[in-house]
């Protein structure tokens, strides 16, 4: 038999002004199973809490209903008080007499009646409450950071500096990402490499960071605090311990005409290569697709010239398993590729290039050593056209969103061009100038006013080549939609920033969601920008949406703080409001019939399949099982379950039906 205590609070006069609290307490005292009922001026005050505690002890209460304010306000307070008196905190429920009753209704009998109903509902519910224990989950205090661009670098360093271990994996041979390709950065025009490379070196030398380049995530299992990740370390075909990075092999490699990824195809590299001179680690890998030895079975020049005998042609990919407690995804973005713009001739005309290619032309470490020379004939372009929104904000191209960074980098490109090519003429075709950011608008104004960049508001319909010139057909919408034709020497497309190829597969491996454009989805657009909807997995940088450097870095530091917060505890404590699948004695084992509708309902991939086997190891039954580490307690599975085999603690079928019936029996 339940012994329930009902504690009706006046909240000063907040409740008692419109509700007859004494009558509520008196009525509740007459309910079956109520052993104690009292009203008091301030239940949350020390004497009020002591009233509850002593009643629990003296009357041996099995459940408590506090009728006061919203549980969103004081539920933790009263549950804690119950726990201190030795009652399981989850045996305490609250009836909301203030926000939902006394404050919103006039004084009168109806309001007191409502208060009584609200108390009765909870009195009946609490009879079906069960003692629950908080869930404790151990934490592996190592973080996995996926992606070694600026976001991944920042996140790794920030986590490592809090004293926790970090494993950083990068799919390319060097960390650095897109930022290492950039010439100067807006709005300060400081050299990208100059600010980035020290960070890259710091990563390589940090005692808490283990760096694996040329490595990708193979698979992931587990949950917050307890992930197991398999990492594929792609074969570099060299022994990294022996290699000193002397560069003999890359100098002597006979295959020299491979378009360099780092230079966006504008420069060449060898088959054994270091992507760029400041690469970290500064050791080469062999590109097996282009290496003569792997194609024809002979060459081995690199092996001959290597002074430390570090070349390993027979090296194989390694699969490595690591245990980590949290993951930061910082895989970045890419730009739209050729043949996406037949009307602009990208991929057809060598002098129509992307913004990222222009970065390489403008970069002192680039193929032209920082001189702006067009790819087709190495001439300095006298007239250059920049196209903003090449693909972006264009639903017909499938990219209705704004790529965000282009307005700024185009202003920067035009500015760099004007600085480097004196007397050159530059044009920018734009839809709108979106320069929201510290010093951003001023930067664009500088390009227009100080450097004389011609901004034309309108779009370009077509670009074609004629007599060695690129004819750009556009429109100036500020001049009454007048057609504009420019004979340019070079055209730079601000191609839309899009999700990486393979983003979808990665998201599926990680069980995180992604938006229609395959950018990873944050848990809440405002309040949880770096969390994903899988606990313990965080986002940083442009894998979530197009982001500039300051934003990527800020996000990375945000994600790092989340990881550090997680790692500050030895065990994670969670409210036990989670779903459970019932278990029964053999031969039924569970009323679950294994339809797994719940699996499709669960937004957290928290439901697994459990095999029930007999002593001989033969499968008897396949039923659902909730992983308490992943379940967030929404209860969607409960409403899906056709056999009512899954239930959610704190909001069970029994409790909810009881509430409905208790309410209406006397309503």
């Amino acid at each position: 038999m339940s012994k329930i205590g009902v504690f009706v609070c006046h909240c000063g006069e907040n409740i008692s002004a419109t509700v007859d609290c004494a009558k509520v307490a008196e009525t509740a005292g007459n309910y079956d199973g109520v052993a104690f009922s009292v009203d008091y001026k301030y239940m949350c005050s020390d004497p009020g809490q002591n009233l509850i505690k002593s009643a629990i002890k003296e009357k041996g209460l099995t459940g408590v209903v506090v009728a006061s304010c919203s549980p969103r306000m004081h539920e933790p307070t009263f549950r804690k008080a119950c726990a201190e008196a030795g009652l399981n905190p989850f045996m305490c429920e609250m009836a909301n007499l203030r926000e939902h009753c006394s404050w919103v209704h006039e004084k009168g009998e109806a309001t007191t009646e409502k208060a009584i109903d609200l108390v009765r509902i909870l009195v009946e519910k609490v009879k079906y409450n069960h003692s629950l224990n908080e869930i404790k989950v151990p934490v592996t205090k190592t973080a996995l950071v996926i992606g070694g661009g600026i976001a991944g670098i920042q996140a790794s360093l920030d986590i490592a500096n809090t004293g926790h271990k970090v494993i950083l994996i990068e799919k390319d041979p060097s960390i650095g990402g897109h930022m290492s390709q950039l010439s100067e950065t807006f709005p300060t025009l400081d050299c990208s490499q100059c600010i980035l490379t020290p960070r890259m070196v710091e990563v390589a030398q940090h005692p808490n960071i283990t760096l694996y380049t040329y490595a990708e995530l193979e698979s992931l299992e587990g949950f917050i605090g307890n992930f197991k990740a398999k990492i594929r370390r792609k074969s570099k075909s060299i022994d990294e311990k022996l290699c000193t990075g002397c560069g003999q092999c890359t100098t002597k490699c006979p295959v020299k005409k491979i378009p360099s990824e780092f230079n966006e195809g504008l420069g060449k590299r060898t088959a054994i290569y270091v992507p760029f001179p400041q690469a970290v680690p500064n050791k080469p890998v062999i590109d097996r697709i282009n290496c003569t030895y792997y194609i024809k079975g002979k060459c081995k020049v690199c092996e001959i010239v290597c002074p430390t005998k570090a070349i390993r042609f027979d090296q194989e990919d390694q699969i490595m398993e690591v245990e980590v407690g949290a993951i930061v995804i910082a895989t970045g973005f890419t730009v739209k590729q050729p043949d996406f713009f037949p009307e602009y001739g990208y991929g057809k005309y060598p002098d129509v290039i992307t913004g990222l290619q222009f970065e390489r032309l403008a970069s002192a470490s680039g193929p032209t050593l920082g001189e702006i020379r067009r790819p087709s004939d190495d001439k300095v372009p006298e007239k250059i056209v920049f196209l903003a929104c090449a693909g972006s904000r264009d639903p017909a191209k499938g990219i209705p969103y704004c790529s965000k960074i282009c307005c700024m980098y185009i202003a920067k490109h035009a500015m760099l061009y004007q600085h480097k090519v004196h007397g050159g003429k530059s044009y920018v075709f734009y839809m709108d100038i979106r320069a929201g950011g510290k010093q951003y608008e001023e930067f664009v104004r500088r390009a227009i006013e100080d450097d004389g960049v011609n901004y034309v508001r309108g779009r370009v319909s077509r670009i074609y080549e004629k007599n060695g010139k690129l004819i750009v057909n556009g429109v100036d919408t500020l001049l009454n939609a007048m057609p504009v034709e420019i004979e340019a020497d070079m055209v730079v497309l601000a191609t839309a920033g899009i999700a990486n190829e393979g983003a979808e597969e990665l998201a599926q491996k990680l069980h995180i969601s992604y938006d229609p454009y395959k950018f990873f989805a944050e848990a809440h657009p405002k309040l949880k920008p770096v969390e994903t909807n899988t606990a313990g997995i965080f986002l940083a940088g442009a894998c979530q949406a197009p982001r500039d450097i300051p934003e990527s870095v800020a996000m990375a530091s945000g994600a790092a703080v989340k990881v550090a917060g997680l790692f500050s505890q030895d065990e994670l404590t969670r409210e036990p409001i989670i779903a459970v699948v019932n278990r029964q004695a053999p031969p039924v084992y569970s009323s679950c019939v294994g339809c797994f509708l719940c699996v499709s309902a669960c937004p957290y991939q928290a439901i697994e399949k459990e095999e029930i086997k007999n002593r001989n190891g033969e499968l008897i039954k396949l039923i659902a099982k909730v992983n308490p580490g992943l379940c967030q307690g929404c209860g969607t599975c409960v409403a899906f379950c056709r056999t009512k085999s899954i239930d959610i603690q704190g909001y069970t079928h029994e409790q909810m039906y009881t509430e409905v019936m208790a309410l209406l029996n006397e309503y």
Partner: protein
Amino acid sequence: MAEFEPKIVAFVCNWCTYAGADLTGTSRIKYASNVRIIRFPCTGRIDYMLLLKAFDEGADGIIVSGCHPNDCHYTSGNFHARRRWIMFRSLCDFTGINTERIKFSWVSAAEGAKWAAIVNATVTSIRELGPYTEYKKVAKYPEKEVTHG
């Protein structure tokens, strides 16, 4: 004769509508007292058999309310609830349950005034419909045989 006071049960999620109703309180916006809120973690948790149970037990009207689409605390629970509601509504139409007695809406944690408006509107419309005595005729449940769903 006194005006008919309908019994209205509100099934709401903890994160948006419950908090929205709290805001109605802290804003001291007055509304009709004929509603009793039952708190769920998420509208996705609401088994619609509970709605039938409420009618069976004598409710005259029902409000189901949760987070706006895309704002669900659990990402997608409200979408499940909405989809289920579409199915449930046709089932109601088929079986003769008057769907005008069920108000399905979204109230966010910031929409205290909206909550008051929805309650008032529901009370008015249910008052016009009168007591829901037809349900017992439609359902013809054997007395008290069905309890927990």
